[in-house]
């Protein structure tokens, strides 16, 4: 199981700004190891964000997203106390879900 995500969600004027920092290697599949062999790609392929259980954003990522990915997005009509949950799946089938409360 991968390390937990850091999620910050702050409400301002009816719009919630959600910032997520995930811990993932995001190997591009372009690099070579010491023996000259390509290191296979290993990256998060899907990210889903939900507000109080309703999906609000779905992201599909390729290997061109940086290591330890950062994602931020905005959600309308949410208020302090609402629950934001973010989950990701990588191309090896590993997954992780974390939840945060809007402040």
């Amino acid at each position, binding site marked *: 199981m991968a390390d937990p995500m850091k999620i910050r969600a702050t409400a301002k004027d009816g719009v919630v700004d959600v910032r997520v920092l995930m811990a993932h290697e995001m190997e591009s599949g372009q690099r*070579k190891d010491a023996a000259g062999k390509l290191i296979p790609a290993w990256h998060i392929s*899907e990210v889903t964000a939900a507000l109080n259980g309703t999906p609000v954003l779905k*992201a599909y990522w390729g290997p*061109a*997203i940086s290591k330890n990915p950062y*994602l*931020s*997005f905005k959600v309308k009509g949410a208020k302090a106390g609402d629950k934001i949950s973010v989950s990701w799946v990588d191309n090896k089938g590993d997954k992780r879900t974390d939840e945060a409360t809007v402040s």
Partner: protein
Amino acid sequence: MNRSRRQTLQAAGGVGLYGALVAIGLLNPATVSAQAFDAAAFNAKTLADTLKALGAASPTESKDIVITAPDIAENGAVVPVSVKSNLAKTTQISLLVDKNPNLLAGTYDILAAAEPDVSMRIKMGQSSDVMALVKADGKYYMTKKEVKVTLGGCGG
């Protein structure tokens, strides 16, 4: 006779180029990973192919999409980019990097309550145009911004 010889040579040349690209690691068949999302879009290597795989053959240029990215990125492994769309009914935002081995960096489906404003950090192999493709009200729009990279982010 001459014609067929030329065609044969062209075909052979094509195979040779592909082989060379595989050999130097530009094309890597092993990276073709199975994804729920249309993997073809992530594996396409030209702008035209990527747009086709995304279903947006000829997007319209639009000034209503704002890409926020540095003019000069010191480290190509971490380039902060945000895309904001001011178009009504934006349902999808995709980010493409023109000179990366695979152009598509990410696609975001904007569902119900989310605003079409996302930020992320991407890898860039070299200085290139960063393009945002936005689907709004069933139509595709795009805009681009040049980012100069002083240190590449793909490869070792």
